[in-house]
């Protein structure tokens, strides 16, 4: 379990009047096997929050715990980083080695595993993300979506329990984005996923959605619950997913059209067809 307990963070000195609070009292829990999407506009504190997950930043107030280990405790920092894998926005700036398989091996190499074990994990991780046939390729010859899959493989090879994706889909084309989301759907069984994004459509698949604005968690719940706010979502700098917008408009005029908010075209069509 990864938990944030009343986490406060600001860049710079507190006395400095220019210091802006990036996080103000963030609390939440991410369990293993859970797929949580964190929505927030630019500058809402999403990336700061991501960097707290593995101790790249530590809270100025409050605490972050990963399986009971405090990120401020330097002696467990590397174990925390092994358990919490981070994937970043720019796929070009997180691949380190000159070939795909060497890059995936980078994490396990840092853990000091024996070569045979590294080999096993690299093969496993590449198979998991469907990139086995690209093992000898150089990273710059891959597409954006493929690079992000390699980055995820690099994290999976360390056998993490949590996967935190900081805007990992932001720089991808629609195809690459779909690839990545499909992969996350497959991975959710084994690891807890915190997917940070400003794309509301990606939140429809989540077990739970959190909205962060101005350094605070302003809404939390299942996608159905969160998107029920309707147009009010704009005050957080977000838009409704198209399907939800359509459904809510219909719902206003036909209050007994749905019993629950539909989250996919299929659900909407089913509801419309069974309406009499």
């Amino acid at each position, binding site marked *: 379990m990864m938990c944030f307990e009343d986490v406060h963070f600001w860049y710079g000195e507190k006395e400095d009047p220019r210091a802006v609070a990036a996080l103000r009292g963030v609390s939440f829990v991410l369990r293993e096997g859970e797929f949580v999407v964190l929505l927030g506009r630019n500058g809402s504190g999403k990336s700061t929050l991501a960097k707290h997950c*593995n101790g790249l930043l530590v809270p100025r107030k409050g605490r972050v715990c990963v399986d009971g280990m405090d990120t401020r405790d330097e002696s467990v920092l590397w174990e925390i980083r092994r358990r919490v894998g981070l994937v970043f926005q*720019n796929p070009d700036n997180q691949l380190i080695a000159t070939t795909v398989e060497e890059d995936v091996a980078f994490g396990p190499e840092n853990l000091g595993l024996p070569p045979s074990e590294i080999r096993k994990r690299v093969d496993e991780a590449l198979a998991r993300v469907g990139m086995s046939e690209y093992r000898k390729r150089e990273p710059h010859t891959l597409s954006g979506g493929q690079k992000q899959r390699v980055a995820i493989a690099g994290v999976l090879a360390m056998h993490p329990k949590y996967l935190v994706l900081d805007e990992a889909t932001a720089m991808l084309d629609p195809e690459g984005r779909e690839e990545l989301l499909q992969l996350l759907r497959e991975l959710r069984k084994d690891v807890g996923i915190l997917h940070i994004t400003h794309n509301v459509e990606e939140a429809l698949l989540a077990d739970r959605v959190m909205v962060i604005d101005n350094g605070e968690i302003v809404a939390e719940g299942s996608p159905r619950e969160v998107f029920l706010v309707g147009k009010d979502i704009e005050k957080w700098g977000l838009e409704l997913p198209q399907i939800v917008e359509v459904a809510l408009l219909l719902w206003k005029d036909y209050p007994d059209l749905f019993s629950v908010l539909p989250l996919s075209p299929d659900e909407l069509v089913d509801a419309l067809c069974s309406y009499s």
Partner: protein
Amino acid sequence: MFGKSVVIGQYVPLDSAMHRLDPRSKIFFVALGIVTLFLVQSWLSFALLGGFFVLLVLLAHLPFQYVLKSLRPLWVLLALTLCLHVFFTPDDALVLFGFLRVSLGGLFKGLFIVARLVLLVVATTLLTLTTSPIELTDGIEGLLSPLKRWGFPAHELAMMMTIALRFIPTLLEEADRIMKAQMARGIDFESGGFMKRIRGLIPLLVPLFVSAFRRAEDLAVAMESRCYRGGIGRTRLRMLRFERRDYAFLSLSLLVFVLSLSLSWLTW
């Protein structure tokens, strides 16, 4: 430039006996070869070494024109060396062209040095043509790691080389993109005098450097997130190991080098 693989160095990916050797033994071979080439003083030794190198090129399945191509940038130097020796050796003049004296002793000396340089380049080319940059980096790290005891940053050097190799194509693509963007804004990279062109590079280099620094920052964060903490306790996917073929190759090389050295002392 996009999508195409940018070739770094001259590595020719083949599967040959020379390619399969441990990079460390090839680096050893080059180092010893260079020392030998500078010490030997007789044509016989050169012939022996030359023959040995030709044998290795054959073993590496390398076409000879690849090896010769690596000599191309050198030919001015070679010609100059030869001319200087031929014309300016204060020796018995063979022919006199006005003030130019062609010296026989100079001709020999010049050819001697040319042969030495050519063999030198062939030996190093054998290394760079058969060893990928990654292997080369691993090899250098392996050879330098005993120096770690005295605080020599062997691992850090190798990591820097790896990252440089990884980012050369990325930065080339980026430079290409910036150049096109600046050209679209009316900057002329292709005409004007030397100074104007140099100044014209500023709008390319400044954005390139800014972006390189940003990339470096991102990369450092990504590396730390993946538990990188320097070379301590780090293992490798591919551990370098001396095989029997490496011992065989090194003993053979050593034998040839010693033989050519003793030939040189005997005949000189």
